[in-house]
């Protein structure tokens, strides 16, 4: 009687077809008159990794919030494989296959590690049994199997980050937006994560958007980069091109000089 929670399930399976695109078209976001994003456009295709970089306060997290429906853009459209998803509630966007992680880890702290991952699969419409099997695969893949019965709040920060990514993957995303996945990880943990993330687009056919300040990780992982500064696009293209752009160099050196 209480077992079925797949109301309003929207997820069209053909979204996962190769070549599906998430298109952000001239999106602006305002907070009390302050323009956090100003006419930013970007595109992610399935099977690729896009790095979203920029100094602190440049609007990277705001972009993720706008795409996943936590914020409603003041102008511009967001389009998923031909569907206009602008202004949809976060839940519907998630069910359409756009999942995210958070800059500050948001796990379900009283749930076990396994339940955290299962819950995302269940939210996507799976039975508990199937969800548990999917969680088992993901936990083993992410090296979290030994912690499966521990409460999520008992884990180290780096492990929590991995649980959050495993949880998002359990919802079977078409596009996955990761907000600083390597923050708080040491170099070894970050390298392990890098390998896991690098395989995702090929293995699962999903498109990844990654925000991170760890340039080593970004340069090695991303196929393309999109650079924001003060809410505006100041550069985009493949890694080598972007790295040499004068505006990008200046934005980074400028912010570092003040830091």
């Amino acid at each position, binding site marked *: 009687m209480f077992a079925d*929670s797949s*109301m309003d399930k929207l997820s069209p399976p053909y979204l996962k077809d190769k070549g599906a695109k998430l298109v952000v078209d001239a999106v602006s976001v305002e907070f009390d008159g302050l323009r956090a994003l100003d006419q930013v456009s970007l595109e992610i295709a399935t099977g690729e990794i896009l790095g979203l970089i920029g100094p602190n306060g440049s609007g990277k997290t705001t972009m993720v919030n706008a795409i996943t429906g936590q914020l409603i853009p003041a102008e511009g459209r967001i389009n998923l494989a031909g569907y206009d998803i602008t202004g949809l509630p976060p839940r519907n966007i998630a069910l359409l296959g756009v999942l995210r992680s958070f800059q500050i880890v948001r796990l379900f702290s009283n749930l076990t590690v396994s339940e955290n991952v299962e819950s995302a699969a*269940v939210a996507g419409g799976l039975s508990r049994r199937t969800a548990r099997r999917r969680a088992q695969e993901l936990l083993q893949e992410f090296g979290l199997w030994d912690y499966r019965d521990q409460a999520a709040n008992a884990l180290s920060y780096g492990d929590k980050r991995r649980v959050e990514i495993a949880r998002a993957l359990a919802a079977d995303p078409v596009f996955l937006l990761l907000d600083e996945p390597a923050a708080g990880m040491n170099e070894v943990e970050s390298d392990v994560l890098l390998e896991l993330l690098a395989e995702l687009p090929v293995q699962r056919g999903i498109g990844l958007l990654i925000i991170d300040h760890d340039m080593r990780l970004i340069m090695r992982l991303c196929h393309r980069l999109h650079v924001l500064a003060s809410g505006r696009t100041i550069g985009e293209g493949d890694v080598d091109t972007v790295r040499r752009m004068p505006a990008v160099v200046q934005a980074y050196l400028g912010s570092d000089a003040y830091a």
Partner: protein
Amino acid sequence: MSNTRNIRPQVLLTVLLLILPLLGLALVIDIIEVNLAERITTLLYINLILVLGLQVYMGNSGILSFAHIGFMGVGAYASAVLTIPVQMKGLALPDLYPVLASAQFSPYVAMIAGALVAATVATVLSYPLMRLSDAAAVITSFALLVVLHTIMVHWSAITNGPRTLFGLPKATGLYLAAFSACTMVGVAVMFKESRTGLLLRAVRDDETAAAAMGAHVSVLRWRGFILSAFMAGLGGSLWGHFITSFSPSAFYLKETFVILGMLVIGGSLTVTGAVVGTVTITVAFETLRITENAVNIAQILPMRLVGLTEIVLAIAMIAILILRPSGIVRGAELGELAVFQRFFTRAMHAKSTIEKQQEESKL
């Protein structure tokens, strides 16, 4: 593989470990045949159903609900109207609508009906409230309790107004109460482990993250609230057919705080906590009541001792909230305690230790 089975062994173990002592208690009480003990134990089971019902909503959603006892009243009155003998209805409920005045059902049918009426009322009333979180949700649930109470006091045709309604057939015995309570233990555990229960607990821990992975916050809460009201209605019907006469004041603040206190002290996160809290507070209450009576009869103090139970409950609640805010039982159900977990994973541990030793001996 055991972990891909539909129900985890820990869950079954929890249900068994909670139900067996409860059934055992009923047997012992039945054998010793002391009227007072039987009465106290029957009320313990009825209170347990109410506490479990509150746990289903409050424990899994994390939202404090004051309205619970209001639904207990709905169940009690619905069941009363369906069971008071036709020849007594003229006296007990003179203004009752003709359709209902000629109706008389078996109390057992009426108990289920009482629970269903409470669930139906909750279904209709609560959906708009489910969008609220935190303080706003708590305050509206309190308002809902006041509204339900006011209706019970003023809807004379059904409730006999603020006066005592009498004439309910006595139908709730020790075993019926025990059996119902054990069933509800199972229901509460299964709900917690269901898809809705899992997602509701996710929403409780982080609403934003749960919505961002596709959880429908208000629908999940709504389902929990309806089941919770069903259990409150069942508890109310059982109580009505145990006590046989009552007035609306039975379903108001005093009972609300007793049930809430039991859950908060036991620990609202778990079904085990609900059981532990109910038993602990009942034992404490009865001990205090006996002490109070003894002191008064012996006239040790210059004045009569009154209100000891209320004062102690209040102090216990404050102490628990300060010292152990999540209650006596924190996060783990009985079947998930470390001692049993060790049992489930012993094989794995043993294996890894042997492997480690082998590696060390190689070095």
